[in-house]
């Protein structure tokens, strides 16, 4: 078995990397895959909180890299979903505590036992980002339909391409179709115009996300599968797994869907 390493990154902070990492890992695990999520945001760890596993942290990624514990000891097994694990970041250190080569070592070992390794990258373009992409097989770039987020995503894609890990696939997160309709928000076409990479997910703004992160239960796990964000996350998981899944019908109104359909058909 050789697992696949997927890095979720963005450049800009606060666009939804951690939420997407948690939900993607959870969705893949519920599809029967063996998944580990790794929080690479050393010093500002969040993935443990969003997954509701913070109380169970004994060892973290830095302990593994510094040889204070075995890799297995740092893997927290989620009790709600079979074969879902978390390796948390350290909160008391910073991103210089580990190197890109360390991340490659960790992932090489994890590949032997797991199907998917989801790395939640920190924001920025410095060491933390470089750590997160060093071992990667596939990069997912998360952006919001917002000018500065897209600008940062463009920079990140450039850096990933320069490292020969590109170009990556795009997830547009927190889109509000009604605002796009009114011309108040960047449309999918506007974003793809600049970023020019393949789209793998369109996730609508969804209030339930805030509730789920506060509770520590990823929305794809909580059974609130009727919400559109949850459905969108599951679709991304399925696409990663090789399925051809059509993008969601986010709004009943025709004009938005017409434009989307036209874009999808290559017009």
């Amino acid at each position, binding site marked *: 078995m050789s697992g696949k390493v997927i890095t979720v990154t963005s450049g800009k902070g606060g666009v939804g990397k951690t939420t997407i990492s948690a939900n993607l890992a959870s969705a893949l695990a519920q599809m029967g895959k063996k998944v580990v999520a790794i929080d690479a945001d050393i010093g500002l760890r969040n993935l443990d909180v969003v997954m509701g596993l913070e109380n169970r942290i004994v060892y973290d990624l830095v302990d593994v890299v*510094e*040889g204070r514990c075995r890799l297995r000891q740092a893997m927290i097994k989620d009790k709600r979903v079979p074969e879902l694990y978390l390796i948390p970041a350290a909160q008391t250190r910073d991103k210089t*505590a580990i190197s890109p080569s*360390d991340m490659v070592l960790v992932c090489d070992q994890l590949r032997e036992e797991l199907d998917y390794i989801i790395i939640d990258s920190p924001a920025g*373009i410095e060491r933390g980002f470089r750590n997160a992409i060093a071992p990667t097989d596939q990069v997912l770039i998360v952006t919001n339909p917002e000018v500065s987020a897209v600008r*940062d995503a*463009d920079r990140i894609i450039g850096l990933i391409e320069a490292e020969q890990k590109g170009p990556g696939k795009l997830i547009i997160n927190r889109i509000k179709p009604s605002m796009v309709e009114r011309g108040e928000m960047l449309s999918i076409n506007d974003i793809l115009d600049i970023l020019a990479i393949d789209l793998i997910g369109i996730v609508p703004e969804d209030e339930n996300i805030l509730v789920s992160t506060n509770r520590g239960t990823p929305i794809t796990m909580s059974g609130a599968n009727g919400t559109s964000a949850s459905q969108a996350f599951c679709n991304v998981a399925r696409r990663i797994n090789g399925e051809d899944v059509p993008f969601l019908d986010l709004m009943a109104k025709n004009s938005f869907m017409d434009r989307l359909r036209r874009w999808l058909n290559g017009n």
Partner: protein
Amino acid sequence: MITQTAPVISIKGIREGLLITVDEGPYDEVFHLLSAEIEQKRDFLRGSRIALAVGKRPLHRHQLAEIQDLFSRHALTLWTVLAETVDTRTAARQLNLATRLPGSQTDLDGNVRQLVEREVAVEETTVQANTLLLQETIRSGRSIYHEGHVVIIGDVNPGAEITAGGNVIVWGRLRGLVHAGALGDETAVICALHFVPTQLRIADQIAIPPDDRRHNPIPEQAAIQEGQIIVEGWG
């Protein structure tokens, strides 16, 4: 007086603290030497995190604990033990000590491994060419500098910068910053299929396009006419 066969201690600064390397020799002598060294250099070492490299020497847990005590009596923290024997590393872990330096050549268990040389692709730029031709989109944050002409088949995204001594031709969307004639040539021109730069410069002149340009996607050329930058449609 130091004899030839006495163990040697070396102290080196590393990024995470201090590395103390202990040579071969019987444990008691080494411990004694370590105590003396720490005592003597007390002011210099005070408050440091210490990584202790013990090489092939096997150390038991109680010996490591003894060293740990020695250090803490002098306000030092023993944080990592670098050992070549598995038993020593296991003993160190039991005391919650690290056994590896991040970024090191060893694997996660502390064993030295063969490094595989990763081939890093080197971007080939023909510096000697009069015209630099790039067939790709220039993304945000990327900076291109060339003394001759620059031709881009692709887009120039916002946040990207093109600086050329000669002309700049963009066969695509120009949305970034471009400076033609950067070495002083006022006859330099800038052409693009879709001309919406954040800022354009020719020689010493700077111009900012007006806001409504987005709705005018015809090919255009910028040149200095009568002392200022004028942008005109092509054809």
